């Protein structure tokens, strides 16, 4: 199982290490550094590296490599998932999982790691339980602690650990009982030069914020559950009921959690809500750039926060463009063009056009750059998924309920 964990920042410093069994020398990371040097960019380091005696499995998040060291055959996905969970927990505790946050909270980080893994076996990874064991830092508590001498650690037994609903602690109390559901869908797509869809699918999640007292038992039903044929559930969801009735029945964890994530595959037709009309051409010494964005199948909703980025070829020296709306920047070092469009007005389509100048003497690039698009559409789930109703059993009070929809671009690329 997981033997040790090293955290390495972008400068290549090992700024934190934790060993769950015997201590493994830092020098094992040299294999990682070797591999890192071969990679062109930080993301490109192969996640599973084998060394003569150990296996290094890492993830790259928040500009930190989290390198787990294993000595025996382990399921690598188990390690990867666990590492992601560790970073999620840090983010949950400290607001972000970056290097400064970790350094500022060394002791808590150490305690967390100790609680999350025992001898390489995951122990408590649910943030609800962890928060019961180790209180997250906040200014008020720090002040209180210094004054009263009490500590961040609670000395109660984490109740959830033993019950059949380990994700929920007992004795939750709220004055305002509320449950909010956010249906968020991301479109991953590749659009080709002609504007037809090469590939498109939807990654959806339902994120919840449930603040309900006691042990509520919720049932969430959909108008069109048929859309959800490829789903992954939070452990709280009763799979049997889903199989038979297509409703989500669950005792929710307390606070924020992801209820389900789903995938609407490429077999279903995906309505692409925006189109991009690119016109990029290069010739000796320069070129033309002309891009127009417009809405398409948005069900009357406004397309907002549109940002267009384009990684230009290395030979591009500079770009001189005029946007009809929004602002644009060109980073001459990374050669990345970013155009912050804002909202799209269907009457007056945003356009960005102008000249490209190339490095003198170098031949024009052979292929055009791909454009990636960011956008958001409020109050619409592009798959058409709609929540029908939410019922609560097991408790007497009447909760406040709300559902929000949001569609945004995931990995949305237009080839030019």
């Amino acid at each position: 199982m997981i033997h040790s964990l090293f955290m390495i920042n972008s400068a290549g410093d090992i700024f934190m290490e934790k060993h769950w069994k015997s201590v493994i020398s830092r020098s094992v990371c040299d294999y990682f550094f070797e591999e890192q040097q071969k990679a062109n960019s930080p993301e490109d380091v192969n996640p599973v590296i084998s060394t003569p005696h150990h296996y290094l499995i890492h993830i790259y998040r928040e500009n930190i490599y989290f390198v787990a060291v294993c000595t025996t055959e382990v399921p690598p996905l188990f390690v990867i998932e666990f590492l992601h969970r560790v970073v999620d927990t840090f983010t949950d505790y400290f607001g972000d999982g970056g290097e400064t946050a970790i350094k500022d909270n060394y002791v808590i980080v150490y305690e967390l790691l100790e609680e999350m893994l025992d001898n390489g076996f995951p122990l408590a990874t649910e943030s609800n339980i962890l928060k019961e064991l180790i209180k997250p830092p906040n200014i008020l508590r720090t002040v209180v602690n210094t004054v009263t001498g009490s500590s961040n650690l609670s000395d109660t037994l984490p109740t959830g650990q033993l019950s059949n609903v380990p994700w929920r602690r007992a004795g939750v109390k709220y004055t305002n009982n509320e449950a909010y559901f956010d249906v968020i869908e991301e479109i991953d797509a590749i659009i080709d030069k002609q504007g037809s869809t090469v590939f498109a699918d939807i990654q959806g999640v339902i994120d919840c914020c449930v603040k309900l007292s006691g042990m509520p038992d919720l049932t969430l039903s959909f108008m069109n559950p048929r859309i959800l044929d490829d789903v992954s559930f939070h452990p709280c969801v009763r799979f049997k009921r889903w199989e038979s009735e297509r409703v989500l029945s669950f005792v929710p964890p307390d606070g924020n959690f992801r209820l389900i994530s789903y995938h609407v595959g490429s077999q279903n037709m995906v309505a692409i809500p925006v189109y991009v009309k690119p016109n990029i051409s290069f010739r000796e010494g320069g070129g033309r750039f002309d891009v127009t964005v417009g809405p398409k199948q948005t069900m009357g909703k406004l397309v907002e926060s549109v940002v267009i980025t384009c990684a230009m070829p290395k030979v591009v020296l500079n770009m001189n463009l005029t946007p009809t709306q929004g602002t644009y920047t060109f980073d001459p070092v990374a050669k990345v063009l970013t155009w912050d469009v804002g909202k799209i007005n269907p009457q007056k389509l945003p356009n960005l056009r102008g000249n490209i100048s190339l490095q003198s003497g170098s031949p024009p690039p052979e292929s055009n750059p791909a454009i990636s698009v960011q956008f958001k559409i409020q109050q619409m789930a592009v798959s058409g998924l709609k929540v029908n109703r939410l019922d609560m059993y097991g408790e007497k009070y009447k909760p406040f309920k709300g559902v929000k929809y949001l569609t945004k671009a995931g990995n949305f690329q237009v080839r030019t």
Partner: protein
Amino acid sequence: MTDSKYFTTTKKGEIFELKGELNSDKKEKKKEAVKKVIASMTVGKDVSALFPDVVNCMQTDNLELKKLVYLYLMNYAKSQPDMAIMAVNTFVKDCEDTNPLIRALAVRTMGCIRVDKITEYLCEPLRKCLKDEDPYVRKTAAVCVAKLHDINAQLVEDQGFLDQLRELLSDSNPMVVANAVAALSEISDTSPSPAAQMEMNQQTINKLLAALNECTEWGQIFILDALSNYVPKDDREAQSICERVTPRLAHSNAGVVLSAVKVLMKGMEYVGMETEFVTTLQKKLAPPLVTLLSSEPEVQYVALRNINLIVQKRPDILKHEMKVFFVKYNDPIYVKLENWTSYPSATQENIAQVLAELKEYATEVDVDFVRKSVRAIGRCAIKVEQAAERCVSTLLDLIQTKVNYVVQEAIVVIKDIFRKYPNKYESIISTLCENLESLDEPDARASMIWIVGEYAERIDNADELLESFLEGFHDESTQVQLQLLTAIVKLFLKKPTETQELVQQVLSLATQDSDNPDLRDRGYIYWRLLSTDPAAAKEVVLAEKPLISSETDRLEPTLLDELICYIASLASVYHKPPSAFVEGQALVVRRTQLPVRSASGEPGATGATESPVPQQAQPVQQQQSVIPSHDTAMGDLLGDLLSMDLNPQPQQQMSMTPAPQQDMGGMDLLGGGLDSLLGGPSPVAGMPASQASMGGGLGDILGLGISSTTYVPPKQVWLPAPKAKGLEVSGTFSIRQNVRYMDLTLKNNAMAPMGDFAIQFNKNSFGLSPASALQVPSPLSPGQTADVTLPLGTNGPVQKMDPLMNLQVAMKNNIDVFYFSCLIPIHLLFTEDGQMDRKVFLATWKDIPDSNEVQKEIANPNQLDPKGISDKLQQSFIFTIAQRNVDGRDMLYQSLKLTNGIWVLAELKIQPRSPTMTLSLKTRALDVIPQVQQAYELIIANM
């Protein structure tokens, strides 16, 4: 206020200062000091000098302080073992605390103190905690057993903790079960001893399946991994396991999903091939795999490596989901490179899409990725015939881009297409020739030269082209040199008049100026061929080439089957079995193999491969009509060389009676088949009986040693293919004409030919040793089977083995050395001079003390009469000395002698019309008695 304050040091005497604070009376100050110590520890500073002071803080009610001290202890106990003993008492006390959290914490920390001296003190508290009323403590204790095992395996086994752990498998709390499973599998992974292995029966499986639904996601991974090692006893059980595991596919944890996929993939093998159940299950597998591909890049990578295996095993699963393999430009490179490997699953329907996509990639920036895309296009062409034309035109488009590495890669690929579809696309050769100048990589150059040589008659200036290559002959890599040599010889054979000079030049370059033996030898061979018999040379060099298949990146079927068992593990990422990279572990033994019926061409089919020995004039080439395309150049050479057939085939020099022995395999099958067809009267198991009758039949037909047809046990698999890199060895022992033989069947399940076989025996109880070298037709090409007989001598080195009849054998081939062991049937060692004189028999019988007499009831299933029995036994060198009839019972007195001079005397009481008889054996060497009894039973039942 953040923890970074703990890192600020004010003065140089930091340790000294901390020491002072640790011994302070104020609780608050103490705690702050411990925090500072921990902070220094986390960044790797050595604060071990503070050990006694920190341990002193342990006796506290404050939970946080206790935890911090525990953290410190775990880190430094190893370097201060004497001090650590001081902490033991506190642990023992804490293990009896009323608060379960403290009990659990204590038992957890205890296990992390990796000091040998302490471990003994921990056994008692641990035993208690394993039976604790609180499940939280039990589950922590379960992990502690694994920790302890890591430190001192012997202690854990002696103290019976493993049994306690096994009991926890049926605990009422799912989390305890999960941890027990995790602990047990870790222990059995690292410990070779059989006591540590996790035994699984139906009950435990049911317990695990029940716990599966309720435990944490990590627990589910452990349980699923354990489940995948279980071999269901029939289809229905496999089916029900699959059904109960299927819901796990919808879990949000990618690890759970992939482990569930593993269980299902293995389950499907047990359920049987094409049932409806399997088809529906396959459908259910696709969506979760697709989902994995849209998670974090690291998960994608691992998933892709696994999908690669899954698609090879069951190509249908993702055939509608090709699009998910399309690459986005900002994917990390390792994901991109993995994606293309899945393209072999292209089919006729989706090829257009795939091609367009691949062409798009070919204009990417990343060189490696582009190359692979081009290669993938070629692979599509070879795989999907209908699309070949499209692929070729795509490749031509790519060549027009004149991007150097694209062109080179395209040429390599086009060469393969030419080989797959001869005489179809040669019109494009002229376009290829235009790019001759720009080729600078050996692969591309060699391919181009091959094309020029192969189609020399259609290229007007082929001689000029080749001549241009010849100029820098010595600077070329060997691959190009070899190819150039062959191409020029081809050219010469096609256009002899104009190219004489050229061919002489290249031959002299190759034979006189080159240091490379391969090149020199090939040069000489061509030279001699050309000078002695140009017609033969033509036949050899311009021989029809075997077609290539598209399975380049395919794994060997045996390896693939093995890897399927390791889905979701590291092995699946490396595409190597764990035995190849995990150090000194008992893994291979423990993990089960896929069931027999899944693999193509398993033992059942072995006999069916018709007479495996090629007729002498037949070139071996015929047997490998399909060779993988990645070494086409080599394959070509192989074909060229082998078809010359200069050496007589090795099997011609074989031992005295080659024909009947080598045909044994075929006859076996025939005999078996006939017997079962006729539904022969023998009520015993079909195989052995048919073997025996075959033995007799064979003897009759061939007129050989009728008197000496002893009983031959059926062949057993001694060395399964997965353990020996594709070589499968099965065999048995026999005696023919008073010579002992080991009859072996070698089967090559690998994808490469095997050769250079040799065999050696370890010292054994009866001094058996090979009497001559092992003669195997070489090379043994993929899929081929060879029956070999090895005459045995009995005067090799002797060492008593346990079990007595054990024989350890080492077999070597060009790949590796493999070890296996087998049991010698004792009747192999009976000698033909085992008949004792009557008087001597009587004297010896009396002479051997009665304590050396062993009686046993043995079966006489065919209710043979004494005469029949005595005849039968005589054939196996058990001689009847006298026969008496006492009270209606027949008494046979018999003797036999082993090769090492041990005499065994026997008295056989036969009751007429009774299915049993009594065998009394008397000998001075009691060790052999069980074997002799067994031999009696076998011979009587099977002849």
